[in-house]
């Protein structure tokens, strides 16, 4: 049987990459690529190796083990063998390895490969941790600083090489479905590193604002940050503006809707590829990051088409909250003790002149929560304007943002004030 014939007989794509050895061996048997004698030899050697490993597992104290544990050990053995078989892409070479090498030899060589892969993955994790930005998302932070290190702490390549111990809640833009053990982790880290590389072109502040625009409690959500940033960056590129801020106004969103709505799927994909080229010129992505991003564009185009048809473009291109104006220059202070605040309220209620009240308030109040409490308790109708006049632009913007976020709305136009002072504040320019 010549090389080409074998290549055609076993299609690499049809093999299960999580259980590589099993699927390869079954395929080889099914297509009669090895003799019965060779098949029996492989099985015998596998039993022998399994017996040895069980002996090692039980410290030679028990000849039998629970089936679940035996399955784990056998899967671990076959995972290591499969890892070695995967190292060559040549199908003839793979077959020769299976026929000519001892199963134990394949196993130990596989283990060497798994050890090397583990080392590479650990190094990759260190790099990721070093370069990690502080995004307001618990899943992202926990996965990088807790879940992934846990894997390396708990990973047992002798009796559980196929296991993935640890908790990785952070979702990548596309899920890894066909890998197990250290291969899964390496691939996860590789993709995470590429996503991180892309995100590093944007400031933490811009990304955290975008997350807030996506959802008020984005820090608790299992979302892929890279996807959100990429789509908004593409939208900025389509708008012909600098993508660094990642901001899209509602007017710009309307313009995008009007422009993109008449386009069909191939045209939308072309448009996004064009936007990516613009983005590439701006960001100068590494080749790996570039390929990773390009691969995602068709999926984004599909989502975009769906969002255009359902008139929900704001679900893919996130419009920014207006309230982020100069937020970075504002720092909230410590709220007062309840007793002190109560005393201050009583004291202010005793004053007749608004200017006196405002002066005392400005001297004593350091936190926004206290300020709102005093507005509710100590000021009435005409007095509000004088209070707001004493605030600077940043303080007013931050106050507006806080009220808007508390109400669960994203845009001023959707917000209906509950109190008189809130109505006045939002009417002010």
């Amino acid at each position, binding site marked *: 049987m010549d090389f080409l014939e074998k290549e055609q007989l076993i299609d690499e794509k049809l093999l299960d990459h999580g259980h590589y050895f099993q699927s390869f061996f079954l395929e080889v048997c099914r297509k009669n690529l090895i003799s019965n004698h060779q098949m029996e030899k492989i099985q015998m050697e*596998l039993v022998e190796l399994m017996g040895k490993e069980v002996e090692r597992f039980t410290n030679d104290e028990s000849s*039998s083990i629970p089936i679940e544990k035996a399955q784990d050990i056998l899967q671990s053995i076959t995972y290591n063998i499969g890892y070695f078989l995967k190292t060559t892409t040549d199908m003839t070479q793979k077959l020769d390895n299976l026929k000519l090498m001892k199963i134990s030899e394949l196993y130990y060589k596989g283990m060497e490969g798994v050890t090397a892969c583990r080392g590479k993955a650990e190094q990759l994790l260190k790099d990721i941790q070093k370069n990690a930005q502080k995004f307001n998302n618990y899943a992202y932070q926990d996965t990088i600083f807790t879940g992934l290190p846990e894997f390396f702490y708990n990973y047992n390549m002798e009796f559980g090489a196929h296991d993935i111990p640890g908790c990785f809640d952070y979702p990548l833009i596309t899920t890894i479905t066909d890998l197990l053990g250290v291969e899964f982790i390496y691939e996860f880290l590789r993709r995470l590193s590429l996503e991180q590389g892309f995100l590093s072109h944007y400031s933490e502040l811009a990304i955290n604002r975008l997350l807030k625009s996506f959802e008020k409690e984005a820090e608790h959500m299992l979302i892929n940050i890279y996807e959100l940033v990429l789509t908004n960056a593409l939208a900025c590129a389509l708008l012909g503006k600098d993508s660094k801020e990642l901001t899209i106004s509602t007017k710009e969103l309307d313009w995008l809707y009007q422009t993109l709505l008449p386009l069909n799927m191939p045209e939308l994909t072309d448009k996004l590829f064009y936007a990516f080229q613009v983005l590439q010129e701006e960001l100068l992505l590494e080749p790996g990051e570039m390929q990773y991003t390009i691969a995602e564009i068709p999926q984004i185009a599909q989502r975009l088409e769906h969002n255009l048809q359902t008139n929900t473009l704001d679900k893919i291109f996130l419009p920014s909250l207006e309230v982020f104006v100069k937020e970075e220059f504002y720092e909230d202070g410590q709220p007062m003790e309840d007793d002190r605040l109560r005393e201050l309220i009583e004291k202010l209620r005793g004053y007749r002149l608004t200017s006196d009240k405002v002066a005392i308030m400005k001297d004593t109040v350091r936190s926004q929560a206290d300020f709102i409490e005093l507005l509710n308790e100590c000021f009435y109708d005409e007095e509000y304007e004088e209070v707001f006049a004493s605030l600077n632009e940043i303080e007013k913007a931050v106050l507006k943002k806080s009220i808007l976020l508390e109400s669960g709305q994203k845009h001023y136009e959707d917000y209906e004030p509950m109190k008189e002072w809130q109505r006045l504040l939002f009417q002010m320019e």
Partner: protein
Amino acid sequence: MNDQFMLLPISLQNRQTALALQQCNDVTAKFGLQLTEPEIGQLIEHRKEALEKNGRIEFGGGVIQKMIMEFADSAYLYQENYAETLIELQECFYYFKNESMEILSDDELIKRMKMYFDDVCHGSIEYLQTTMLENYCRDIRYDTKEYEEMNGYEDNYIDFMDYEREDW
């Protein structure tokens, strides 16, 4: 890929076990105990059932050889009940291997079984299984007694059961 064990040829294992059991006959002959070919077949068949029943898998000749060597000099074993007792002891072994949560090694459990079988149980497998080993393994699981130091001669287990009754 759930059925991992399709890769392992079970018949080959059985052949190995049969060979090992035949070799045991040479040693047990001096105690007047012999296993015939059909009895060996029965033992292997029951081993398979006992392992399946208890959700376990075994490699090599299995634990039966060790058991034969340990129990061969028992006063309660004779040619007529030899094979039958071995089958029951074998099943008992796998059951209590699970019940002891893998804390006991094969040798420890076999030695404990032999000790109870010869002394407290006077050759009664039922008593061994339902009382002595049951209580012993319960103590292991709950760590209620210094089980490693128990020798089975005193009324430890009777006390334990009395205590349980008072409590009720």
